[in-house]
């Protein structure tokens, strides 16, 4: 299928607005993606036609809402190639999923155990494990990275020991875009009987993973990174793991029977879904998955790769521009600085020219410390971006450079 980006852009109403007098160029897709009309319509339809609480009402609306929500769960199951629908837990997002697993492991880990995280992690994937280690007396070890922003797998081999209980790695780094070798990470961890959690927040919009084939123990992601709404995400856990972990929150939905003496917990997935969930968000998550699959992940990846190559070429034409994260294996993310110029200043000027990029440490301070920089300017691309937009970015950065130096 040929890919017509102009036609795709018609699906995204926000791409037609102006910012500071210029047509918007949205290059902050790693922070959140924009939403196609199909997802917006799904949200409007839900609240206009069948809003009701789910799983308990006998009335028609409740049944319709429950059906739609459970259908979305099955869409997620199919999309990520998960064996059972009850292995899909709806969460409020990636951070919620990570905390749910970390909390569960508090009852499993003991003093002397080790937890491995990668040096490429987002703060949300560092802090919960630090808290977990403080609670349990386990220690946190870090898989270091090299100058190109790739994990040092030779160090991973030595860090991985029989003491290792858990390994947590993001599939793609949010700050640099590096795609980590998760197949190898999972296989080696399993050889040591350690469990693995993969954070898919930065990869899910670009790479469709086969979770059964990966044989991963846990996988978390957020809908809003892949054209869905904010406030909803998913946790995949192998059934045997989810049965082993204690519930994270108490409340409605997660119980089977309650007396003052004892409560028995509901079956999976409800054990981990206390309270009224983000029903509309869950259904719209399903609509976003449908939308992306209609385009096709291969088509998306090929197109984004061509944008990455073009943008890298164009930006490197600017003298004094340095790109951080130069792995051959990366998604369409370019983190860069202009020599002697603070990223905040560059971000401010390009915003004035209608271009949305992210500046700062991208919630990954350890990476910035590694390069000894205060932060970077990060342009992250999606399939609805164009080469013309790359040109606009390049011109804007040029202009910022001449104003600021």
């Amino acid at each position, binding site marked *: 299928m040929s890919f017509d980006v102009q036609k795709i852009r018609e699906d995204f109403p926000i791409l037609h607005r102006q910012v500071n007098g210029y047509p918007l160029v949205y290059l902050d897709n790693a922070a959140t993606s924009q939403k196609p009309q199909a997802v917006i319509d799904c949200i409007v339809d839900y609240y206009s036609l069948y809003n009701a609480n789910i799983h308990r009402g006998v009335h028609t609306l409740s049944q319709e809402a429950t059906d739609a929500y459970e259908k979305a769960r099955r869409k997620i199951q199919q999309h990520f190639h998960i064996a059972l629908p009850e292995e899909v837990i709806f969460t409020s997002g990636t951070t919620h999923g990570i905390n749910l697993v970390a909390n569960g492991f508090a009852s499993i880990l003991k003093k002397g155990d080790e937890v491995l995280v990668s040096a490429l992690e987002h703060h949300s994937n560092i802090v919960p494990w630090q808290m977990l280690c403080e609670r349990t007396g386990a220690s946190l070890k870090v898989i270091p990275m090299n100058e190109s922003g790739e994990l040092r797998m030779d160090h991973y081999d030595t860090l991985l020991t029989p003491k290792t209980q858990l390994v947590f790695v993001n599939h793609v780094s949010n700050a640099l875009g590096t795609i980590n070798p998760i197949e190898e990470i999972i296989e080696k961890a399993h050889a040591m009987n350690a469990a693995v959690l993969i954070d898919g927040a930065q990869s899910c919009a670009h790479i469709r993973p086969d979770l059964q084939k990966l044989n991963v123990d846990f996988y978390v992601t957020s809908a809003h990174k892949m054209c869905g709404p904010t406030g909803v995400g998913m946790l995949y856990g192998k059934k045997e793991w989810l049965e082993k972990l204690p519930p994270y929150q108490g409340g409605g939905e997660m119980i089977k029977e309650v007396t003052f003496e004892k409560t028995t917990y509901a079956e999976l997935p409800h054990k981990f879904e206390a309270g009224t969930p983000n029903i509309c968000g869950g259904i719209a998550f399903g609509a976003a998955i449908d939308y992306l699959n209609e385009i096709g992940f291969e088509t998306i990846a090929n197109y984004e790769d061509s944008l990455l190559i073009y943008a890298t070429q164009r930006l490197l034409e600017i003298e004094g521009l340095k790109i951080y994260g130069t792995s051959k294996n990366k998604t369409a993310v370019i983190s860069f600085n202009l020599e002697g110029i603070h990223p*905040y200043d560059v971000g401010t000027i390009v915003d*004035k020219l209608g271009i949305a990029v992210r*500046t*700062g440490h991208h919630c990954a301070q350890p990476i910035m410390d590694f390069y000894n920089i205060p932060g970077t300017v990060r342009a992250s691309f999606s399939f609805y971006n164009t080469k013309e937009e790359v040109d606009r970015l390049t011109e804007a950065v040029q202009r910022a450079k001449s104003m600021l130096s």
Partner: protein
Amino acid sequence: MSIASLQEELIEEFSLFDDWMDKYEHLIELGKSLPLIDPALKSEDKLIKGCQSKVWLNAELKDNDIVFTADSDAIITKGIIAVLIRVFSNQKPEEIIKADMNFIDEIGLKEHLSPTRANGLVSMIKQMKLYAVAFQAQLKN
């Protein structure tokens, strides 16, 4: 000059530029001309942390007036610091405490002083006012 008239002067100065580019170029010039801070003062205790850029602020009392010196690692932030120092440095503590901040809006730099911008400037203004309160108490004793 009083705080109010310094503010008026700045509003007038910035009104000469209709184009945002010229306004920012002027701001960048102001940032570059900000007197260098004594490197010894760029210490951890003078640092106001922002997620996006860092600000160092020092205050001293000189003949009952507060003298502020400051620096930032980002030049646009430094330009705004230069504006703030021009207004607040060499002023009496009580004048600083009661000073209105609306002039930043009128200059057209409001977006930089949004609490969510995380560039350290909002905390810097707060810190300037806190210094004024502290020095005022000191002077009364």
